[in-house]
Protein backbone atom coordinates (compact mmCIF):
# COMPACT_ATOMS: atom_id res chain seq x y z
CA UNK A 1 0.00 0.00 0.00
CA UNK A 2 1.30 3.40 -0.91
CA UNK A 3 0.63 5.97 1.74
CA UNK A 4 0.46 9.58 0.80
CA UNK A 5 2.99 11.83 2.44
CA UNK A 6 0.10 13.89 3.68
CA UNK A 7 -1.43 11.17 5.78
CA UNK A 8 0.83 11.96 8.72
CA UNK A 9 1.02 15.70 8.36
CA UNK A 10 -2.74 16.07 7.96
CA UNK A 11 -3.26 15.94 11.72
CA UNK A 12 -1.34 19.15 12.31
CA UNK A 13 -4.06 21.63 11.31
CA UNK A 14 -6.56 19.76 13.49
CA UNK A 15 -4.29 20.03 16.47
CA UNK A 16 -3.70 23.70 15.88
CA UNK A 17 -7.40 24.55 15.66
CA UNK A 18 -8.09 22.50 18.78
CA UNK A 19 -5.89 24.59 21.02
CA UNK A 20 -7.62 26.99 23.34
CA UNK A 21 -6.80 30.67 23.74
CA UNK A 22 -3.45 31.21 25.35
CA UNK A 23 -3.64 31.51 29.07
CA UNK A 24 -2.67 35.16 29.51
CA UNK A 25 -2.07 37.08 32.70
CA UNK A 26 -4.48 40.00 32.86
CA UNK A 27 -4.81 42.82 35.35
CA UNK A 28 -8.23 42.51 36.97
CA UNK A 29 -9.84 45.34 38.91
CA UNK A 30 -11.44 44.80 42.29
CA UNK A 31 -15.03 46.09 42.00
CA UNK A 32 -16.30 44.88 45.37
CA UNK A 33 -14.82 43.45 48.55
CA UNK A 34 -16.66 41.84 51.41
CA UNK A 35 -15.70 40.14 54.64
CA UNK A 36 -17.57 36.83 54.86
CA UNK A 37 -16.29 35.45 58.16
CA UNK A 38 -13.44 36.29 60.56
CA UNK A 39 -10.96 34.73 58.10
CA UNK A 40 -12.69 34.65 54.70
CA UNK A 41 -12.97 37.56 52.30
CA UNK A 42 -14.66 37.81 48.93
CA UNK A 43 -13.10 39.91 46.19
CA UNK A 44 -15.26 40.58 43.14
CA UNK A 45 -13.08 41.11 40.09
CA UNK A 46 -13.74 42.66 36.74
CA UNK A 47 -11.37 40.82 34.39
CA UNK A 48 -10.84 42.41 30.96
CA UNK A 49 -11.81 40.12 28.06
CA UNK A 50 -13.09 37.49 30.49
CA UNK A 51 -14.21 34.59 28.29
CA UNK A 52 -16.70 33.30 30.86
CA UNK A 53 -16.27 30.37 33.22
CA UNK A 54 -17.90 27.11 34.26
CA UNK A 55 -18.86 26.48 37.86
CA UNK A 56 -16.04 24.75 39.72
CA UNK A 57 -13.19 26.37 37.78
CA UNK A 58 -10.43 28.44 39.35
CA UNK A 59 -8.05 31.25 38.50
CA UNK A 60 -4.37 31.67 39.24
CA UNK A 61 -3.46 34.88 41.06
CA UNK A 62 0.09 36.27 40.84
CA UNK A 63 1.76 38.87 43.00
CA UNK A 64 5.04 40.37 41.88
CA UNK A 65 7.25 42.25 44.32
CA UNK A 66 9.36 45.24 43.29
CA UNK A 67 12.48 43.05 43.29
CA UNK A 68 10.80 40.64 40.87
CA UNK A 69 9.94 37.92 43.42
CA UNK A 70 6.73 36.22 42.40
CA UNK A 71 4.15 34.35 44.42
CA UNK A 72 1.31 32.50 42.73
CA UNK A 73 -1.78 30.76 44.13
CA UNK A 74 -4.94 29.19 42.76
CA UNK A 75 -8.35 30.37 43.99
CA UNK A 76 -11.69 28.86 43.12
CA UNK A 77 -14.33 31.07 41.55
CA UNK A 78 -17.36 31.50 43.82
CA UNK A 79 -19.65 33.35 41.42
CA UNK A 80 -22.03 31.71 38.96
CA UNK A 81 -21.09 31.89 35.29
CA UNK A 82 -24.21 34.01 34.74
CA UNK A 83 -22.91 36.79 37.01
CA UNK A 84 -20.27 38.03 34.56
CA UNK A 85 -17.82 39.03 37.25
CA UNK A 86 -15.33 36.75 38.97
CA UNK A 87 -15.80 36.46 42.73
CA UNK A 88 -12.97 34.85 44.69
CA UNK A 89 -13.45 33.92 48.32
CA UNK A 90 -10.04 33.81 49.96
CA UNK A 91 -9.26 32.32 53.35
CA UNK A 92 -6.73 34.50 55.12
CA UNK A 93 -3.86 32.33 56.32
CA UNK A 94 -1.78 34.10 58.96
CA UNK A 95 1.62 33.09 57.61
CA UNK A 96 0.58 33.08 53.95
CA UNK A 97 2.37 35.05 51.26
CA UNK A 98 -0.62 35.90 49.10
CA UNK A 99 -3.84 35.67 51.11
CA UNK A 100 -3.00 38.40 53.70
CA UNK A 101 -2.28 40.77 50.80
CA UNK A 102 -5.54 39.90 49.04
CA UNK A 103 -7.58 40.18 52.26
CA UNK A 104 -5.94 43.14 54.04
CA UNK A 105 -4.31 45.31 51.40
CA UNK A 106 -6.25 44.97 48.17
CA UNK A 107 -9.30 47.22 47.98
CA UNK A 108 -11.95 48.38 45.55
CA UNK A 109 -10.33 49.96 42.50
CA UNK A 110 -7.03 48.13 42.92
CA UNK A 111 -5.59 45.85 40.27
CA UNK A 112 -4.36 42.28 40.61
CA UNK A 113 -2.93 39.87 38.05
CA UNK A 114 -5.04 36.81 37.28
CA UNK A 115 -5.21 34.17 34.57
CA UNK A 116 -8.05 31.79 33.81
CA UNK A 117 -10.52 30.28 33.90
CA UNK A 118 -8.63 27.06 34.59
CA UNK A 119 -9.82 23.49 35.12
CA UNK A 120 -12.37 21.19 33.55
CA UNK A 121 -12.41 18.13 35.78
CA UNK A 122 -14.02 19.59 38.91
CA UNK A 123 -16.82 21.28 36.97
CA UNK A 124 -20.60 20.99 37.01
CA UNK A 125 -22.98 22.50 34.49
CA UNK A 126 -26.74 22.70 34.76
CA UNK A 127 -27.21 20.55 31.65
CA UNK A 128 -25.69 17.64 33.60
CA UNK A 129 -28.96 16.17 34.81
CA UNK A 130 -29.05 13.85 37.80
CA UNK A 131 -28.69 14.11 41.54
CA UNK A 132 -25.87 16.27 42.75
CA UNK A 133 -23.99 15.63 45.99
CA UNK A 134 -21.77 18.50 47.14
CA UNK A 135 -19.55 17.92 50.16
CA UNK A 136 -17.37 20.79 51.35
CA UNK A 137 -14.97 21.29 54.23
CA UNK A 138 -13.95 24.81 55.33
CA UNK A 139 -13.08 27.04 52.39
CA UNK A 140 -13.63 24.00 50.14
CA UNK A 141 -17.19 25.31 49.96
CA UNK A 142 -16.14 27.94 47.39
CA UNK A 143 -16.28 25.98 44.09
CA UNK A 144 -19.38 24.15 45.37
CA UNK A 145 -21.00 27.55 45.97
CA UNK A 146 -20.40 28.43 42.32
CA UNK A 147 -22.22 25.20 41.38
CA UNK A 148 -25.11 25.98 43.73
CA UNK A 149 -25.39 29.55 42.43
CA UNK A 150 -25.33 28.21 38.87
CA UNK A 151 -28.06 25.73 39.82
CA UNK A 152 -30.14 28.55 41.36
CA UNK A 153 -30.03 30.48 38.08
CA UNK A 154 -31.21 27.57 35.94
CA UNK A 155 -34.81 27.11 34.79
CA UNK A 156 -37.10 25.40 37.33
CA UNK A 157 -37.32 22.29 35.16
CA UNK A 158 -33.54 22.08 34.94
CA UNK A 159 -33.20 22.59 38.69
CA UNK A 160 -35.73 19.82 39.30
CA UNK A 161 -33.75 17.48 37.02
CA UNK A 162 -30.63 18.02 39.14
CA UNK A 163 -31.67 18.14 42.79
CA UNK A 164 -28.83 19.06 45.15
CA UNK A 165 -27.83 17.76 48.55
CA UNK A 166 -24.98 19.66 50.11
CA UNK A 167 -23.08 18.78 53.29
CA UNK A 168 -20.87 21.53 54.64
CA UNK A 169 -18.42 20.94 57.46
CA UNK A 170 -17.03 23.96 59.33
CA UNK A 171 -15.32 24.43 62.69
CA UNK A 172 -17.91 26.76 64.22
CA UNK A 173 -21.11 28.46 63.08
CA UNK A 174 -19.19 31.71 62.63
CA UNK A 175 -16.82 29.96 60.22
CA UNK A 176 -19.68 29.01 57.88
CA UNK A 177 -19.09 31.04 54.71
CA UNK A 178 -22.20 32.22 52.79
CA UNK A 179 -24.42 31.05 55.68
CA UNK A 180 -27.39 33.32 55.02
CA UNK A 181 -27.34 32.67 51.29
CA UNK A 182 -27.09 28.91 51.86
CA UNK A 183 -30.03 29.00 54.28
CA UNK A 184 -32.04 30.95 51.71
CA UNK A 185 -31.13 28.61 48.84
CA UNK A 186 -32.01 25.61 51.00
CA UNK A 187 -35.61 26.84 51.20
CA UNK A 188 -36.02 26.01 47.50
CA UNK A 189 -37.61 22.68 46.56
CA UNK A 190 -34.54 21.18 44.89
CA UNK A 191 -31.80 22.13 47.34
CA UNK A 192 -31.01 20.59 50.69
CA UNK A 193 -28.14 21.91 52.82
CA UNK A 194 -26.82 20.16 55.92
CA UNK A 195 -24.30 21.84 58.21
CA UNK A 196 -22.01 20.05 60.59
CA UNK A 197 -19.81 21.85 63.12
CA UNK A 198 -16.65 20.10 64.23
CA UNK A 199 -15.30 22.31 66.99
CA UNK A 200 -17.97 24.29 68.76
CA UNK A 201 -21.70 24.78 68.32
CA UNK A 202 -23.91 27.55 69.72
CA UNK A 203 -26.63 26.78 72.25
CA UNK A 204 -29.70 25.41 70.55
CA UNK A 205 -27.79 24.25 67.44
CA UNK A 206 -29.98 21.76 65.59
CA UNK A 207 -27.44 20.49 63.05
CA UNK A 208 -24.72 17.89 63.32
CA UNK A 209 -21.77 18.38 65.68
CA UNK A 210 -19.07 16.05 64.42
CA UNK A 211 -16.80 15.28 61.52
CA UNK A 212 -18.51 13.86 58.45
CA UNK A 213 -18.84 10.10 58.83
CA UNK A 214 -20.46 7.24 56.99
CA UNK A 215 -23.68 7.47 58.96
CA UNK A 216 -24.06 11.17 58.14
CA UNK A 217 -23.38 10.63 54.43
CA UNK A 218 -25.88 7.77 54.44
CA UNK A 219 -28.52 9.84 56.23
CA UNK A 220 -28.34 13.15 54.36
CA UNK A 221 -26.49 12.32 51.12
CA UNK A 222 -28.02 10.58 48.12
CA UNK A 223 -28.13 6.78 48.24
CA UNK A 224 -25.63 5.15 45.84
CA UNK A 225 -28.54 3.61 43.90
CA UNK A 226 -29.46 7.12 42.70
CA UNK A 227 -26.03 7.36 41.02
CA UNK A 228 -25.43 10.99 42.08
CA UNK A 229 -22.57 13.07 40.77
CA UNK A 230 -20.37 13.76 43.77
CA UNK A 231 -18.07 16.75 44.21
CA UNK A 232 -15.90 16.82 47.32
CA UNK A 233 -13.67 19.79 48.11
CA UNK A 234 -11.65 20.81 51.14
CA UNK A 235 -8.32 20.17 52.81
CA UNK A 236 -6.59 16.98 51.64
CA UNK A 237 -7.35 14.82 54.74
CA UNK A 238 -11.02 15.89 54.60
CA UNK A 239 -11.37 15.13 50.89
CA UNK A 240 -9.66 11.76 51.10
CA UNK A 241 -11.72 10.73 54.12
CA UNK A 242 -15.06 11.72 52.55
CA UNK A 243 -14.21 10.18 49.17
CA UNK A 244 -13.25 6.88 50.84
CA UNK A 245 -16.46 6.86 52.88
CA UNK A 246 -18.57 7.47 49.77
CA UNK A 247 -16.88 4.57 47.99
CA UNK A 248 -17.37 2.36 51.08
CA UNK A 249 -21.07 3.26 50.99
CA UNK A 250 -21.19 1.95 47.43
CA UNK A 251 -20.80 5.09 45.33
CA UNK A 252 -19.01 4.64 42.02
CA UNK A 253 -15.49 6.13 42.45
CA UNK A 254 -15.69 7.45 38.88
CA UNK A 255 -18.66 9.60 39.89
CA UNK A 256 -16.95 11.12 42.93
CA UNK A 257 -14.77 14.01 41.84
CA UNK A 258 -12.40 15.57 44.30
CA UNK A 259 -10.45 18.77 44.62
CA UNK A 260 -7.88 19.15 47.38
CA UNK A 261 -7.11 22.54 48.87
CA UNK A 262 -3.59 23.18 50.09
CA UNK A 263 -2.36 24.74 53.33
CA UNK A 264 -0.36 27.51 51.62
CA UNK A 265 -2.00 30.87 51.29
Amino acid at each position, binding site marked *: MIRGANSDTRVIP*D*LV*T*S*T*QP*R*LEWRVATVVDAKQETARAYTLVLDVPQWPGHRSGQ*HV*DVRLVAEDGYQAQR*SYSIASAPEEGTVALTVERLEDGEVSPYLCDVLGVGDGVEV*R*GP*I*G*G*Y*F*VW*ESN*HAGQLLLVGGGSGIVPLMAMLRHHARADPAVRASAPVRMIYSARTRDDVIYREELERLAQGPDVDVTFTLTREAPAGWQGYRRRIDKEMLGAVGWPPSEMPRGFVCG*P*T*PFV*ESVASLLVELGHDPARV*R*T*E*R*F*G*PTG
Partner: protein
Amino acid sequence: MQIEEMRLDGNAAAGALREIFAQEMTVAIATCAGCGTASKIGALLEYGHAMGVILRCPGCDTAMLRFTRTAGWLRLDASGISYLMMPERGTPE
Protein backbone atom coordinates in the same frame (compact mmCIF):
# COMPACT_ATOMS: atom_id res chain seq x y z
CA MET B 1 3.91 19.51 57.90
CA GLN B 2 2.38 16.09 57.25
CA ILE B 3 3.03 14.56 53.84
CA GLU B 4 -0.71 14.22 53.23
CA GLU B 5 -1.13 17.97 53.67
CA MET B 6 1.40 18.48 50.89
CA ARG B 7 -0.60 16.25 48.58
CA LEU B 8 -3.03 17.97 46.25
CA ASP B 9 -4.39 16.76 42.91
CA GLY B 10 -4.10 17.37 39.22
CA ASN B 11 -6.51 20.31 39.42
CA ALA B 12 -3.82 22.28 41.23
CA ALA B 13 -1.46 21.76 38.28
CA ALA B 14 -4.05 22.79 35.68
CA GLY B 15 -2.58 26.26 35.04
CA ALA B 16 0.97 24.95 34.56
CA LEU B 17 -0.26 22.09 32.34
CA ARG B 18 -2.23 24.55 30.23
CA GLU B 19 1.01 26.49 29.64
CA ILE B 20 2.76 23.34 28.45
CA PHE B 21 0.01 21.65 26.43
CA ALA B 22 -1.88 24.80 25.34
CA GLN B 23 -5.20 23.28 26.36
CA GLU B 24 -7.15 22.28 29.42
CA MET B 25 -5.57 19.02 30.62
CA THR B 26 -7.48 18.01 33.77
CA VAL B 27 -10.00 16.11 31.63
CA ALA B 28 -7.31 14.38 29.55
CA ILE B 29 -6.93 10.67 30.35
CA ALA B 30 -3.49 9.30 31.20
CA THR B 31 -2.65 5.61 31.50
CA CYS B 32 -0.08 4.76 34.16
CA ALA B 33 3.04 3.05 32.82
CA GLY B 34 3.39 1.29 36.18
CA CYS B 35 -0.01 -0.37 36.73
CA GLY B 36 -2.09 0.40 33.65
CA THR B 37 -4.74 2.42 35.50
CA ALA B 38 -6.29 5.13 33.31
CA SER B 39 -7.10 8.33 35.24
CA LYS B 40 -8.21 11.80 34.35
CA ILE B 41 -5.32 14.15 35.04
CA GLY B 42 -7.52 16.04 37.53
CA ALA B 43 -7.67 12.87 39.64
CA LEU B 44 -3.90 12.31 39.79
CA LEU B 45 -2.12 13.11 43.04
CA GLU B 46 0.01 16.22 42.91
CA TYR B 47 3.11 16.84 44.97
CA GLY B 48 4.42 20.36 44.58
CA HIS B 49 8.00 21.25 45.45
CA ALA B 50 10.13 24.33 45.08
CA MET B 51 11.72 22.67 42.05
CA GLY B 52 8.50 21.77 40.28
CA VAL B 53 5.57 19.40 40.25
CA ILE B 54 5.13 15.62 40.32
CA LEU B 55 1.84 13.97 39.38
CA ARG B 56 1.45 10.44 40.71
CA CYS B 57 -0.92 7.58 39.90
CA PRO B 58 -3.70 7.31 42.54
CA GLY B 59 -3.58 3.52 42.09
CA CYS B 60 0.11 2.66 42.50
CA ASP B 61 1.92 5.96 43.24
CA THR B 62 4.08 5.81 40.09
CA ALA B 63 5.39 9.27 39.15
CA MET B 64 3.49 9.73 35.90
CA LEU B 65 4.43 13.28 35.01
CA ARG B 66 7.18 15.53 36.33
CA PHE B 67 7.92 19.04 35.28
CA THR B 68 10.27 21.67 36.52
CA ARG B 69 11.67 25.01 35.46
CA THR B 70 15.36 25.74 35.45
CA ALA B 71 16.95 28.86 34.04
CA GLY B 72 15.60 29.17 30.53
CA TRP B 73 14.29 25.59 30.35
CA LEU B 74 11.02 23.87 31.06
CA ARG B 75 11.72 20.19 31.64
CA LEU B 76 9.03 17.53 31.35
CA ASP B 77 9.39 13.83 32.15
CA ALA B 78 6.29 11.89 31.08
CA SER B 79 7.89 8.45 31.20
CA GLY B 80 5.30 7.33 33.77
CA ILE B 81 2.51 7.77 31.21
CA SER B 82 2.20 4.96 28.67
CA TYR B 83 -0.74 6.51 26.82
CA LEU B 84 -2.36 9.94 26.85
CA MET B 85 -5.74 10.86 25.44
CA MET B 86 -6.43 14.56 25.08
CA PRO B 87 -9.81 15.90 23.96
CA GLU B 88 -9.43 17.49 20.55
CA ARG B 89 -11.97 20.26 20.88
CA GLY B 90 -13.57 22.05 23.76
CA THR B 91 -13.50 20.57 27.22
CA PRO B 92 -15.87 17.61 27.42
CA GLU B 93 -16.77 16.60 30.91
